């Protein structure tokens, strides 16, 4: 199964950890300006959270549910 990578601006706070199972629509990250959250577009398991310094982004890898 191919992983899906979501990239999120790194000023934001990531609300998941590696190994977490996440459902579509659940909060993935919280923004820094009021009620500003991003939700996960798919259901699956978080397999990696990497910081990409070049783009100042988090790359969140999700293994989709079969």
């Amino acid at each position: 199964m191919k992983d899906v990578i979501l990239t999120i601006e790194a000023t934001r706070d990531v609300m998941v950890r590696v190994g977490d199972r996440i459902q579509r629509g659940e909060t993935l990250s919280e923004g820094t300006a009021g009620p500003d959250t991003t939700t996960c577009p798919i259901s699956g398991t978080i397999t990696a959270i990497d910081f990409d310094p070049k783009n100042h982004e988090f790359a969140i890898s999700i293994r989709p549910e079969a």
Partner: protein
Amino acid sequence: MRKWLRRLTVTALAAIVITIVASPGATGKYATPKGNNRDLSFYRPPISDSPYPRTRAKRVKNVILCIGDGMGLSQVAVSRLKVAGRHGKLHMERMPVAGLVRTHSGNSLVTDSAASGTALASGVKTHNGMIGMTPDERVHVTIMEMAHAKGMATGLVVTSSITHATPACFAAHVPSRKMETQIAEQLIAGGVNVLLGGGREFFLPQSAPGSARKDDRNLIAEAEAAGYTVVETVAQLRSARHRRVLGLFQLEALTTEPPEPTLAQLTRHAIGILKQRPLGTKGFFLMVEGSQIDWACHDNDLDAMVRQTLLFDQAVEAAIDFAMRDRRTLVIVTADHETGGLTFTDTNDGPDPKVNWSTKGHSGTPVPIYAFGPGAERFEGVCDNTEIPRRIAQLLDLRPFPQPTK
């Protein structure tokens, strides 16, 4: 399916970008450089804990602004515990004046480097992500541009790409920090005398290996035509004493590992170029950034954070060394924001405190400011980050500031 796609689109617009990779699990693609971060033998702590002396001189000729990206009070404290113990000090902590800086941006309590850099360079608040302009995209002149217009020499020294958010804020004006090709163009057009860091990929035409440009402009050639000496190695940098030097030591960010020059070496070289006559006759403004403290904190990597903070402190020491001899140089050390929400709760009198990271993003806590040299007392107490360039402008008699461009 259609409903799923609609949701995906909405989510993407809310700052998520989605890609699909072939390999399962961690990509490794984004990993920040992992050298031997536990080897801190490169660092020499101060031989004394006493404060550097206050300066009697009143007139400020030169300003060196050192910015530790993501460096909060805990980053400084934990780094100090590692190398100088609970009673010791880092070089920046020996500076005789200290205070706290509020960092909120124009649209958030938690700033990013672009908005905070704009505050530190132009004295105005803006939205996260914006460089050198207010939220209505009105361009505001930077303290470095004001210094240049007055005839002062100018320089930027970083360990990130020279086009990254913090250095960009001092010499470029774009609505998004991601516009690094345009930032590279503006850095050269602006005539900053010394540009040292990484990011060669944004200066090479698209036909060149490793280029990140989407056009055929060769900014290396354009820089040379504009009078820059372009260098890529320490040896080349040592022989570069011209009035304009562009040093791009990596395609992307610096590795901060040998054989690259350290941030302290780059700082010394920059000062050496900027102080020489006739270039530095009217003084100079130099910004030095420890760019990768932030990156280590985003990774919640304590060892890397300590190493990057100490590399930054070495550069601060280099700046103070010059200022002690020169007596007309103001050195300011601060941060754009704190990253990681770092705290520590138990040291057991040892060098390895128990640390807690409360986020992988930025936090909104105030950051420290330290100052040494003539005018240092102006930075005592609690201030907003927009106040810092305003006070520098007053000390250098750069007026009016802040100001939008016409």
